[in-house]
């Protein structure tokens, strides 16, 4: 029985995923069946996976049960659905074991009562918040060059869920997807308010809406009325003076409004039709809107264009870093094959430092689609290095996505702390960045202020620490900004015996050492101290620009 390779694990996972979704093709099922029969690892993996599926079912039902707590009396029609079987048992027990009645009839009665409870549950309003708090109505799913208005109280980032509230965009494009299915592309400057999962208000500026049939009835309130969609694609532009243009690209919409003199106005617009509503509320048919509206496809294209442009900027920067004589070690994690076990050192100036040896880690997706990253999740995941440099001053830079802070440390770069000057760099349990150096008598830990709280977990962050022997200062940077400084207690020459990325040596905090829990997609060590402008430039050019991906499933 051979151990599974990473590739086989991925294939197995995809098969099991399809299996629980009832869409595993017959030939794959046959393969899985044979695999389970003859490979113990596969069998155990299968059992653990199916057990997890059962547990998820259990926890999902528990959640409904928790929702019931304190509200049982008020909502007698809602029932914990996993008691369905209990009720059947009850019926059988009462009637089959202890009574002489026909238990089947009561079984059916209980069963039906349970079913009707479930049906009643399904008729509850969609998207209600189980916690009883404010409801999510939409999600910010895409943006290009977005600049929020300075006065905006709420400035969401990509992937954030939106409750009812105002979005004020000074410039750029944002795509908002409502939970009921409608999508609007907002084009700055614009003020748009999300109201319900199927309703918004346009106070100022332009939008284009695409409304699938499931979201028919999607409405947008305007200064002098509202547009009700009947399954279509339309553009709206509310001008500063209060006038509005409405253009229908596909399907049909109804405009309902009122003039200042109190007359009601209703217009039904079909494909290719356009109206202009003046500041007093009167609607006039017009040939064409005065300006085009950005569609979701345009946005996707612009987003792709911007991605491409920024990727090129990052490639240019990384080439410059590679060629810089200060660069001792530089891993871009790009252009590696998925099975590669060698991590290429891109530093052109320092041939002394060799490539890294990847142990255990899996390749995944980095800050943007197509960007490579290594994920460190398992106990022994690490990259082994030979880093023979002796540095008086140094800069350490990394793009990391930290998934957990439950361990004592999340090691980024560690070395064996036996010789004076041996250096390690990590995030500790409280979220502080720590540079540790071995002094003449003991290890010295230079800790930043708390940089990582739960809001930074599972997001890409840029961390830099500089060791400035000349000034006797250590500086920590997070996302391009100087974050905190500490005075050096003892100046040593930094060195890196038995260096590893993503894993601590056994002696440091734990008998077996600890693995970084998360992903790394860029890492560099530099001779000397980079200044704040250089560090900020590294962040601004390298910052993620696509939808944040909490786990890298793709391959470089």
């Amino acid at each position: 029985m051979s151990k599974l390779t990473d590739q086989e694990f991925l294939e197995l996972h995809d098969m099991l995923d399809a299996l629980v979704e009832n869409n595993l093709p017959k030939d794959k099922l046959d393969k899985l069946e044979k695999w389970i029969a003859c490979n113990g690892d596969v069998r155990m993996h299968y059992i653990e996976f199916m057990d997890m599926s059962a547990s998820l079912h259990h926890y999902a039902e528990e959640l409904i049960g928790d929702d019931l707590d304190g509200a049982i009396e008020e909502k007698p029609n809602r029932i914990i659905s996993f008691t369905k079987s209990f009720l059947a048992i009850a019926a059988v027990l009462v009637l089959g074991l202890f009574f002489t009645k026909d238990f089947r009839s009561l079984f059916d009665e209980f069963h039906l009562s349970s079913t009707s409870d479930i049906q009643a549950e399904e008729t509850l309003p969609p998207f209600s918040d189980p916690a009883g708090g404010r409801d999510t109505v939409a999600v910010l799913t895409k943006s290009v060059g977005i600049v929020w208005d300075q006065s905006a109280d709420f400035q969401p980032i990509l992937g954030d869920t939106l409750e009812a509230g105002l979005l004020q965009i000074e410039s750029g494009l944002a795509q908002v997807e409502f939970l009921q299915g409608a999508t609007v592309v907002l084009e700055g400057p614009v003020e748009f308010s999300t109201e319900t999962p199927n309703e918004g208000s346009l106070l100022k500026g332009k939008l284009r809406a695409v409304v699938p049939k499931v979201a028919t009835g999607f409405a947008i309130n305007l200064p002098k009325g509202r547009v009700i969609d009947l399954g279509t694609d339309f553009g709206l532009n509310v001008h500063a003076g209060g006038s509005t243009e409405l253009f229908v690209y596909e399907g049909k919409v109804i405009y309902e409004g009122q003039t200042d003199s109190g007359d009601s106005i209703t217009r039904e617009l079909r494909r290719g039709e356009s109206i202009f509503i003046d500041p007093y509320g009167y609607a006039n048919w017009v040939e064409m809107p005065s300006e085009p509206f950005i569609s979701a496809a345009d946005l996707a294209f612009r987003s792709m264009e911007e991605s491409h442009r920024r990727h090129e900027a990052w490639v240019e920067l990384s080439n410059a870093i590679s060629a810089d004589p200060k660069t001792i070690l530089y891993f871009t994690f790009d252009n590696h094959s998925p099975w590669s076990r060698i991590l290429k050192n891109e530093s052109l100036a320092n041939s002394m430092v060799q490539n890294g040896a990847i142990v255990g880690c899996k390749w995944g997706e980095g800050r943007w689609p197509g960007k490579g990253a290594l994920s460190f999740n398992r106990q022994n995941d690490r990259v082994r290095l030979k880093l023979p440099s002796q540095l008086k001053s140094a800069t350490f830079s990394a793009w990391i996505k930290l998934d957990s802070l439950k361990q004592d440390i999340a090691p980024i770069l560690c070395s064996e702390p036996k010789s004076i000057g041996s250096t390690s760099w990590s995030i500790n349990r409280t979220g502080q960045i720590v540079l540790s150096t071995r002094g003449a008598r003991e290890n010295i830990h230079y800790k930043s202020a708390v940089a990582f709280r739960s809001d930074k977990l599972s997001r890409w962050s840029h961390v830099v620490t500089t060791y400035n022997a000349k000034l006797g200062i250590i500086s920590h940077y997070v996302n391009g900004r100087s974050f905190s400084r500490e005075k050096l207690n003892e100046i040593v020459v930094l060195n890196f015996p038995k260096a590893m990325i993503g894993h601590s040596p056994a002696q440091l905090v734990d008998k077996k050492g600890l693995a970084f829990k998360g992903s790394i997609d860029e890492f560099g060590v530099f001779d000397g101290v980079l200044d704040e402008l250089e560090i900020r430039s590294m962040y601004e050019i390298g910052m993620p620009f696509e939808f944040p991906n909490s786990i890298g499933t793709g391959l470089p």
Partner: protein
Amino acid sequence: MLRKQEFQKERLSKQLNFEGMKEGEQDRSSELVQLMMKYQRRIFAYIHTLVPSRSDAEDILQEASVTICEKFSDFQTGTNFYSWACQIAYWKVRAARKKFATSKVVFNQEVLDVISQTRIQAEEELDNRHGALSRCLQKLNDRDRRMVLTRYESGKNVTAAAQASGRTIQGAYKALNRIRKTLFDCVSFELATEKA
């Protein structure tokens, strides 16, 4: 959680009409309810491992539950209820093979046997994984957690999960694949860390 269990027990007791029973009968019924409360999740998980389709597994659990009730007088207090119940469930799965013969997710008898044996030997490990999963669910972001739990609610499907998380159906399939992978790796890591 305690309160919810009390609620379930109270509700069950009412449905069982304990008040109308003799004392000995009440004790035995009460014992059965206690045991089922304790082991139903594990019995369902056992069946689900043999029958990957969740709705099919739920049907078999239902049938097994009826038999467990009917045969409960044969069960000796103090012996292993879970093993006893799993034997009943196993025979229900075997009996149901005809019913599921056209289903695309039923394994042959030999594979069923080997899965069943392996699973029984790994119960303790699986219990630990169940506990770790709870912690890993807490680590997911709100959107992913809401989505995956919606998917696993009774009667809910991927479409419901897509709506709950504001994703397209295709996006929801991809996201669920990713989330399951994340959770699986997280659980494995949690256990490895505990062991270390």
